[in-house]
């Protein structure tokens, strides 16, 4: 029983981290029609910025590091969008290839700066010990990660569904030319959404630190999971990213625990089922 409880919480925590990664990816894809393959690398860059900050400066808490990682990666995203991606309008393939190239550059730069050994990121000491509820031990930090992901989901939901900015984003997703025609500054929206997506991924990387730590290859481990989440949930759908993240979190965690050799094949199955019967994803409107 303890096994199921702990693994259940682990899968929720992984689902929460995946949501922080996939929600930005999905929003960027939905608005800009841009498959941002740097997203995994941004997650890793955030983790390294956080880890580096906490290691070199005494007394920096995880939360400060997460904010710094998020801001740092958002700034990076701004530069990438402003100076490179903007030069390639109407060339989705070129944009994908550029983001792939930049992902290689980031990954190698991280290796160059921080070395090949994993850097652990400690959880705050008051969250490091397990929480005992009803005879079961819960790792407290993972609970907090789930709560943060839920809060992020709620925040994004309110932003998209209830604010003026969100209304403009939705208009841009549905019909960009019409949105432009009625005076919505679509290109500024692109910058905002790209920075926002990058920032959430960067902060998510730091928050993932106490669970996964920062290591070379973190990007390659996370990106496919995020891709599968987005394929599963539907491109451009926040709800899809949310549901997809927790589905994949659960499948991957239990797959790894029960059938460690074949966890990756098990990941495949929901993807195949969804693509076969609903190619636009569970909650998607546009087919890819």
């Amino acid at each position, binding site marked *: 029983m303890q096994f199921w409880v702990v693994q259940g919480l682990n899968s929720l925590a992984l689902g929460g981290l995946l949501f922080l990664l996939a929600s930005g990816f999905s929003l960027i*894809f939905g608005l800009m*029609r841009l*498959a941002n*393959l740097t997203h995994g690398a941004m997650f890793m860059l955030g983790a390294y910025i956080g880890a580096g900050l906490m290691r070199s400066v005494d007394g920096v808490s995880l939360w400060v590091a997460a904010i710094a990682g998020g801001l740092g990666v958002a700034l990076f995203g701004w530069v990438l969008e402003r100076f*490179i991606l903007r*030069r*390639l309008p109407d*060339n*989705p*393939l*070129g944009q*994908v*290839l*550029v983001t*792939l*190239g*930049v*992902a*290689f*550059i980031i*990954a*190698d*730069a991280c290796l*160059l700066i921080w070395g090949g050994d994993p850097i652990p990121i400690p959880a705050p000491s008051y969250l490091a010990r397990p929480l005992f509820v009803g005879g079961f031990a819960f790792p407290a930090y993972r609970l907090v990660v789930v709560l943060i992901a839920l809060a992020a989901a709620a925040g994004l939901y309110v932003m998209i569904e209830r604010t003026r900015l969100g209304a403009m984003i939705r208009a841009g997703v549905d019909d960009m030319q019409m949105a432009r025609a009625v005076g919505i500054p679509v290109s500024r929206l692109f910058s905002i959404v790209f920075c926002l997506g990058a920032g959430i991924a960067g902060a998510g990387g730091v928050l993932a630190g106490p669970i996964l730590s920062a290591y070379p290859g973190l990007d*390659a481990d996370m*990106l*496919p999971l995020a*891709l*599968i989440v*987005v*394929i599963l949930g539907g*491109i451009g759908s926040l709800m899809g990213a949310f549901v997809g993240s927790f589905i994949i979190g659960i499948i991957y965690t239990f797959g790894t625990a029960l059938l*460690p*050799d*074949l*966890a*990756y*094949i098990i*990941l*495949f199955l929901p*993807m*195949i089922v969804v*693509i*076969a019967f609903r*190619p636009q994803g569970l909650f998607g409107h546009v*087919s*890819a």
Partner: protein
Amino acid sequence: MNKVLMLLFVAGLAIIPLVSGDFYINLATQILIAAVFALSLNLLVGYGGLTSLGHVAFLGLSAYICAWTSTKLGVAPLVAIGLSLVITTIMSALFGLIALRATGLGFLMITLAISQVLWGLAYRWASVTNGDNGISGLTRPSLFGLSLDSASSFYWLTLIISIFAFILMAAFAMSAFGSSLQGTRDQARRMRALGYNVWLIRWITFIYSGFWAAVAGLLYVYYNKYIHPSALSVTASAEALLAVIAGGAGTLGGPIVGAALLVFLKNYASSFVERWNMLLGFIFVLIVLLMPDGIVPGVQRLIRRMRGAQS
């Protein structure tokens, strides 16, 4: 004229082992293998307009099947080769069924996800793949009693297979079927209206392309006598895609030029700098920004312009 040039080119390739040392022979072998692989990817990317970021799935699958059946099951080389080709082709048919539910960026993402799943499997399914250690101990078979262990004999075999591969892929691209494939790339809706089964054309191309990637995988694994999960990484897929795009997608010579450049660069650059991935990333960004349609079409345009200036 063109045929004469091509024969001279092939003759030039054939005498490489007579005039150079093992280092350059091996480099040439690597270029040929990369060229076969890039040509197979080009059928999808260049002629079909289907940008796959997971093409190494087929190279890796066929290499792993060959290495695994040879070293762990001890089957004869011919059986291992046959199994690799058949299973990989079947798998490409299945993967094609999944990936071709989408086109464009969706296709790219699904192919990437598929190859990443196989990459993860190669690392984690250690009881079959030996995980991070890879599968070693593969020996090259002998052909009609001739040993393939020397660099030059393996090079010649690779050259013969590459020429076959080139001719058969060129025939595919230039056939009526190839024209209809290009039609689905440029005007899918009109092709549909004309009564072509666009999906079927793409699927057949996917399978054919997967088959030649499997051939490249066999050459790869017999050349290295070793296979490691990194052969299935995104980087490997991206390198092949870069070879196609840098050389010129949708041309027959482009992927060969691109593959040659890439292998050269990788061998030379890695002796100077350790940062191959970073260099690869920069090349990607620069090619897309500065030379979006590739080297071969760029040079062709230059020649046309010079001829135009003369007349």
